[in-house]
């Protein structure tokens, strides 16, 4: 956006002073030049993050990849032969998600070698640095797992040597996956943007729940498409149901406990969109659709139902990430919310 366009938009939004400032000056009757200014012409104090769809999609896909990898590990550890198909699907999709994540980040940065700039130092104080290593180690693990699976399926000519794969998995698998699921939430929470930092107790947990609910929905859809067992689908449905409930409770709690600074997320068109597509469409609807199969003792496989629930959950998950990222932009523009100082 060039300067002319930016200022044009500002002008259209209610004159140079913004709607709040106009209301203030009307009350004072001094034409807007009184002594009790609350801000500098309501010009934003903070700069907006430039993150676009690449980063939103990365937040969404990265979370799903982490949850898929976790589901593969959990299902494999259970050892139920019925779940073998889930393990296979989840391992492949975790790798696909990891590769897509890397590609999206490179697209956001502009040039591939720019990613390497982040690997020249380790900085525990920067969630971005922690996240880059979480993604790198996670991708490595996902790659090894997918190769092992490929070998087990008889498609790979060689096996990953156990002395390499096992220590890597044992030491780094779980921490990298957990960080991969939650660090994006920490990333936005640890900023100066009011809607993000006041949500720091909720956002990371919500991101984890969303990762698991969308990850389970994706695996359920893949299971339906590859003809998996109804028992596995039921297990996935239970995981998705619990994660969705936790996510809904956290979102509602955030909404109720948040003050003015969360306005850009929960009010107006964005709030309605979040309500419609995430709370109702992405969480409540899939939960209702999955409930019968969860409650029945002898689960049936309803392909259409399963796919509908999965699509609704995935879209809801995307809308959640998008809403939170975009709310950050509006929050950065609200000079009053920041200067009034919510913290």
């Amino acid at each position, binding site marked *: 956006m060039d*300067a*002319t366009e930016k*200022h*044009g938009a*500002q*002008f259209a939004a209610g*004159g*140079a002073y913004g709607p709040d400032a106009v209301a203030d000056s009307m009350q004072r009757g001094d*034409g807007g030049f009184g*002594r009790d*200014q*609350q*801000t*500098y012409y309501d*010009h934003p*104090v903070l*700069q*907006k*993050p*430039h993150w676009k769809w690449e980063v939103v999609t990365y937040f969404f896909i990265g979370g799903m990849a982490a949850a898929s990898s*976790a*589901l593969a590990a*959990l*299902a494999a*550890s259970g*050892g*139920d032969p019925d779940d073998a198909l889930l393990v296979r699907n989840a391992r492949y999709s975790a790798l696909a998600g990891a590769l897509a994540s890397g590609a999206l980040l490179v697209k956001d940065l*502009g040039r591939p070698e720019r990613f390497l*700039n*982040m690997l020249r130092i380790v*900085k525990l*104080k*920067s*969630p*971005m640095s922690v996240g880059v290593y979480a993604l790198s180690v996670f991708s490595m693990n996902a790659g090894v797992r997918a190769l092992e699976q490929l070998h087990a399926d008889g498609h790979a000519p060689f096996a990953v040597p156990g002395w390499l794969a096992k220590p890597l998995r044992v030491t780094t698998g779980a921490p990298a996956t*957990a960080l991969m699921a*939650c660090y994006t*939430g*920490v990333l936005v929470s*640890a*900023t*100066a943007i009011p809607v993000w*930092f006041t949500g*720091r*107790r909720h*956002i*990371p947990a919500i*991101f*984890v729940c969303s990762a*698991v609910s969308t990850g389970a929905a994706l695996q359920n859809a893949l299971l339906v498409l590859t003809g998996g067992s109804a*028992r596995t689908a039921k*297990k996935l449905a239970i*995981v998705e149901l619990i994660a969705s409930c*936790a996510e809904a409770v956290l979102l509602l709690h955030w909404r109720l406990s948040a003050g003015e600074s969360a306005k850009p997320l929960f009010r107006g068109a964005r709030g309605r969109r979040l309500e419609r597509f995430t709370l109702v469409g992405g969480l409540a609807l899939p939960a209702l659709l999955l409930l019968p199969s969860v409650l029945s*003792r002898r689960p049936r496989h309803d392909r259409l139902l399963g796919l509908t629930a999965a699509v609704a959950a995935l879209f809801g998950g995307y809308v959640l990430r998008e809403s939170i990222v975009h709310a950050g932009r509006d929050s*950065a523009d609200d*000079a009053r919310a920041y*200067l009034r*100082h919510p*913290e």
Partner: protein
Amino acid sequence: MSTPEHGFFTDVTLCIGCKACEVACKQWNQLPADGYAFSGNSYDNTNGLSATTWRHVAFVEQMDRVEPSASRWMMMSDVCKHCTNAGCLEACPTGAIVRNEFGDVYVQPDVCNGCGYCVPSCPFGVVAIQPEAGVAQKCTLCYDRQKDGLEPACAKSCPTDSITFGPVEELRALAEARVAKLHAEGREAHLYGVDGPETRDVGALNAFFLIPDRPEVFNLPPKPVLPSKFQRAAYTSGLLGALALTAVGLAVFRPKPWSA
């Protein structure tokens, strides 16, 4: 460090709003123009700091209808604060943002990869991504000029010495003396960025200000936050969530199914 920390002392009571600092900064640092746009905000059509505007003169009009002689028109040349605890520096994942030998917070353009995380991490809204260059940019405190023993372009061009450059310790002494003088004259004045509540998180500012009004009048946050302090709560939230859902997964996928 052999060189003492250098910074700016910007005195609002001396600024005449000539914008020589804005122009000198643009010229010396070869920053592109931002286009023509009429804001309607007093004499300010620059509006704020950006990736290509590293000095910004704010014009604050306070008209008193009841007592016109009490009206005032204040100008403040805003700039990167070069914080002691800099949010941008802490957030940078590449190590592109460093503190140089003069104590300035400096973005190395060849190391920056344009991830943009410093942008929402600056509690003053200073650093920004320049789309054409694809990297983060902000005031360098004229690092190149300092290396040659010159003062930064903005301070050099300031005709009233509203902007003074020098070792921060000396500038603080100068500022204290100026505040005392103004107080003796019965004028309102205080320092922003030396030891007030605004330094709670970010520490003292190497570029600090003398302002005759509340900070928010100049869009200066009364209590700027240091984003890294939110990490503990955020990691706790995320990792507890991951732990709880792992437990759920373990229970659901446990070897003996509940339906048996």
